[in-house]
């Protein structure tokens, strides 16, 4: 309850700050959607030149993409660690966080909430609905609960990976350049992983499991039976990676001594 109250306070605060830079709000929404659109355009361009990508047709790939956008929007809204190192470590804001009663990671999430990202999730749902009806996908009794469960699992995977990477900044004093590049790689989890060679498949499945935020869970709704086991594993992977992230974080925080300046 206490944490829910904090969330609401922070959202109110967010609205106030946002109203100062009103025009920028829309620029940000548009730029977010444009970022998603690049990948979408990539898919459309690909299918102008071929009929299938590793045995998946255009509507299926677009559907996977739509699914991918949903958890990503939720993740970007509530878990935004971009620029953590510069803001909290280099400028010493971490000291302020640590002297407050609420959990430190939760405070950092709160201070960076970004509701415009949720527009991406909405667009994702629309894309899923359109391509799903093109494919004539049935709407089963488990579709909606499964969608919620898999979305939450995917958000947990994202949070786990990015929290782990961000907690590296407690160990090295240099701002890490890994995060922006990771944003590039995560999009590859949307494509049928079977087109990649073994090493990349293993990497995207077990090491940085971005295949579990796109292709595997989406395959369940597409009734792609060859990936059903993987799809059902998604919640487990979510729990495992979220735990790794939280552990890496709390180890990091213990090691934190504050910046010199």
């Amino acid at each position, binding site marked *: 309850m206490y944490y829910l109250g904090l969330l609401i306070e922070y959202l109110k605060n967010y609205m106030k700050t946002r109203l100062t*830079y009103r*025009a*920028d709000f829309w*620029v*940000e929404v*548009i*730029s*977010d959607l*444009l*970022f998603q*659109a*690049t990948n979408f*355009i*990539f898919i459309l*361009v*690909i299918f*102008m*030149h*071929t009929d*299938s*990508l*590793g045995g998946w047709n255009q509507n299926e790939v677009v559907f996977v993409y739509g699914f991918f956008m949903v958890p990503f929007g939720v993740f970007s809204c509530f878990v935004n660690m971009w620029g953590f190192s510069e803001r909290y470590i280099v400028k010493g804001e971490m000291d302020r966080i640590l002297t407050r009663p609420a959990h430190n990671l939760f405070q950092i999430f709160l201070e960076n909430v970004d509701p415009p990202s949720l527009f991406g999730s909405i667009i994702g749902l629309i894309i899923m609905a359109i391509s799903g009806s093109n494919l004539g996908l049935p709407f089963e009794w488990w579709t909606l609960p499964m969608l919620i469960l898999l979305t939450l699992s995917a958000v947990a995977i994202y949070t786990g990976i990015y929290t782990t990477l961000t907690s590296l900044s407690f160990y*090295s004093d*240099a*701002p*890490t*350049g*890994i995060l922006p*590049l*990771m944003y*590039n*790689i995560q999009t*590859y989890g949307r*494509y*049928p992983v079977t*087109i*990649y*060679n073994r090493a*990349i498949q293993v*990497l995207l499945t077990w090491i940085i499991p971005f295949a579990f935020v796109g292709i595997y869970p989406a395959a369940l709704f597409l009734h792609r039976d060859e990936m059903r086991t993987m799809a059902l594993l998604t919640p487990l992977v979510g729990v495992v990676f979220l735990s790794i992230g939280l552990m890496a974080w709390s180890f990091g925080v213990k090691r934190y001594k504050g910046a010199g300046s």
Partner: protein
Amino acid sequence: MLGAYFDFIRIRFLTMLAYRVNYYSGILIYTLNIGVNYFTWRAIYGDGESLGGFTGAQMTTYVAVSWMARAFYFNNLDREISTDIRDGSIAIQFIRPYNYVLVKMMQGLGEGLFRFMMLMIPGMLIAILLFPVQLPTEPSAWAGFLVMLFFSFLISSQINIITGLSAFFVENNEGMMRMKRVVVDLFSGLIVPITLFPDWLSSVLKVLPFQAITYLPGSVFTGRVQGVGIWNVLGIQVIWFLILLIPIVWLNHAARQRLFVQGG
């Protein structure tokens, strides 16, 4: 006076060198990017021989060289400038006896040189080992590519500077910076070579500066553009370099009039 500017290159290079460990992960991740793109394109080609005038081998080379070129020309000048503007330190920089924009360009060059040596060259070597990249045999392709790569850097940095300076007018230009990054990656031909776009879009992109950043140097390196053609595409880059100077000079001038410090 000129010596002072060279010092900015040197100092930035040394600063980057101090943080070089970060770049080892960078090499890995750029290689991974190339790998994933390579497999995606291979799946797209299937049994097909050529797409949009690219053979499979040319596409592999194009993907590798485009990502590696990005490893060189990419920088965060836009962010640096808008941070200077927002925290007010630009006021001090403006009264110092140097040209602020030129200094930023020099710092960008220092970073570029570092990225060229620590990220692009080693990354390229790894990519050549892992993927069937075809290196050009003609010396003119190599010379042309290196000169064009330098112009890629100049044009990309100019666009960054324009985006950064826009913070004078929109106060919070976070959204603009993100939008710029997306537009440059997509429209420069990094993600999809421009010839593969639908006709209407590729004809629009041919009159925009972005193709000069990735697509044109990539075309020279893959041998799609040869001989006299190299002079033509280089000409396009030079023209864009000159055109983009105009908004920079204007913005820099207008900014001095508009400068107000937000709680600096």
